């Protein structure tokens, strides 16, 4: 589904990604772990297509297409959804409106008719329940006045509604208490399916005890220095990033 080959990127003058190789197949859950400053967020933003992140080398192929040929909205319509580390507050735009526009943009892209309001509301209500969110969230402005945990739940709510093929979660676990972490993880687990892939980018091992990954990669200084199965996360838990980084050096 996603093939990253020797990806290099910089932000302003700083070289952040220095050659990343990663392949993600449908049905798989990958965790990319790494200390602060290792390039985790940059990788997410490059895959999302944010301005200011310049790709200086390498390729990324998504479902056989050159990802960098696609605008951010095209990536989304093709099934990539990025869960933001810091979800953006948008005053004046209601949550339900954003959801509906995004949902219909995808349907339109697939040549399907737009959903009628009644059916759409029914779908959203069901997903709200999963995320243990009150219906009032639909009528509030996107993320405005939401707590940290509510913002992250809202990101997963969007995922449940939009059903991406490839979900990229950028530190979705940071700043969550145990209860919220459980709700968010349950939401992500519901997305797991044989035709969908999930990439979790995280600093902490604790997320991985709720969402069990098939593969774990350690990112350090812009490169993946070690890959393994979920036991690698346990090793990280015991020895810290320090041990792995030294071992790789």
């Amino acid at each position: 589904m996603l093939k990253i080959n020797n990806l290099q990127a910089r932000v302003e003058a700083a070289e952040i990604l220095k050659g990343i190789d990663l392949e993600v197949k449908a049905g798989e859950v990958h965790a990319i772990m790494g200390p602060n400053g290792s390039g985790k967020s940059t990788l997410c933003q490059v895959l999302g297509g944010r301005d200011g992140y310049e790709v200086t080398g390498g390729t990324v192929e998504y479902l056989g297409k050159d990802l960098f040929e696609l605008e951010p909205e095209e990536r989304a319509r093709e099934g990539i959804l990025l869960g933001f580390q810091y979800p953006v507050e948008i005053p004046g735009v209601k949550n339900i409106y954003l959801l509906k526009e995004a949902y219909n943009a995808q349907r339109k892209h697939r040549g399907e008719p737009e959903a009628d309001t009644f059916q759409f509301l029914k779908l959203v209500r069901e997903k709200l329940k999963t995320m243990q969110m009150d219906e009032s969230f639909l009528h509030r402005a996107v993320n405005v006045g939401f707590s940290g945990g509510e913002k992250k739940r809202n990101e997963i709510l969007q995922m449940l509604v939009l059903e991406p093929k490839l979900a990229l979660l950028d530190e979705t676990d940071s700043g969550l208490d145990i209860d919220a972490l459980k709700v968010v993880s349950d939401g992500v687990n519901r997305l797991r399916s044989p035709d969908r892939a999930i990439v979790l980018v995280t600093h902490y091992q604790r997320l991985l005890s709720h969402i069990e990954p098939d593969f774990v990669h350690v990112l350090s200084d812009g490169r993946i220095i070690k890959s393994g199965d979920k036991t690698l996360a346990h090793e990280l838990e015991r020895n810290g990033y320090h041990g792995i980084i030294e071992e790789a050096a």
Partner: protein
Amino acid sequence: MSTNALSQHYAEQVQRLQDGLPGAIPEWLAGRRRGAAARFSEAGFPDPRQEEWKYTNVRPIAAKPFVAAVTDAPMSEDALRAIGFEGLDAYRMVFVDGRLRAEFSDLADLPSGVTVQGLSEALSSDPDPLEPLLGTLAHDRFSSFAAANMAFLTDGAVIRLGKGVRLERPLHLLIVGSAGGPVTWSHPRVLIQAGEGSEATVIEHYADLEGASGFTNTVTELRAEAGAQLRHYLLQDHADSAYHVGSLFIQQRRDSRVTSHNVNLGGRLVRHDLNVDLTEPGAEIELNGLFLVGGRQHVDTHTRVHHSSPHTTSREQYRGIGQGHGRGVFKGRVLVERGAQKTDAQQHSANLLLSPNAEIDTKPELEIYADDVKCAHGATVGQLDETSMYYLRSRGIDAEAARGMLVFAFADEVLERMELLPVRTSIENRLAARLPEAGAIDVIG
């Protein structure tokens, strides 16, 4: 026309006016009109050297020999429907080129204790009750436009609410310019006297028939007695070639509450002055404003909130959007008098520029002479937030639509304060139509 010829033109009009004052007009009114005419003749139109007109050059107005429309322009229910508000259940007064057209107005079933009538009719039948209001809040020296309005006064609306009366349905003043000629001017005057504890909603709505390019020079005087609750809409949706200068004066007594919604969408050259005097404790004003300037439009709004008594409150939020070569100005003055302790004043001006050629100037002015007050203000001029754009696009919404959503949301934070849904929806639709990028927006969203 040369400056001399113009002076001559207006001097003749003033003279005709004085010759034409019928004997029946009481002396107080004749005197006020004479004074205003003299003031207008003497001061002429303002020029940008005057501080209050620094950003707005009224030369396009001053260069034309305006005259009053002489005949009643053709009007139809269809034309009114097109410029009115769909679904609004309201009492209605229709003015065309400044004159009341009773045949299109509907004031049936007004509750007792409420008087709504045309100003011309009120002045000819029973003028004396107007003496304490007409020209008492709007002084001639405020501006030569206000003076001209008094001097050339023809018609307008008089609204008097008795003690404790509640007007359930809003009153819609639809003040329309016709395509009668490029140099017609009109001077509508709106007088609102809200008695103690009364309650009402008045919509002052300026619009034009297709192709109109006249000059509307309005003055509104609103006095809210103790405990009165007034909602006032000042909506300007003129044709893009029209000129509009409006001066609104609000005086509030103890515990009265006034909410003002001021929206400027149309017009070529527009100036609004909103003057609020909070004269007794407990008086509270909320000022909500939105202007959109595009093409070659110029819209200038000055607000002045005068806290002349302790324990008075003002909440002001104005937003501007500039596109094309549009030019917007917002100047908000808050004056807290010595002794006006416990004043609580908040003012916020936020502006959005969508084009590199648009310009918006915003200037808050706080003058505080009391020491135990709460005053806050903020002013911003910026572009659309990149991060928000990226966030929306990352959800599959294309750049155009995302832009439209954000611009619309920016404006709607002011419009959503409107209590009348049919007015709000209609304004939202008109706004969306004037924002090319927001054309695809479903405004009910």
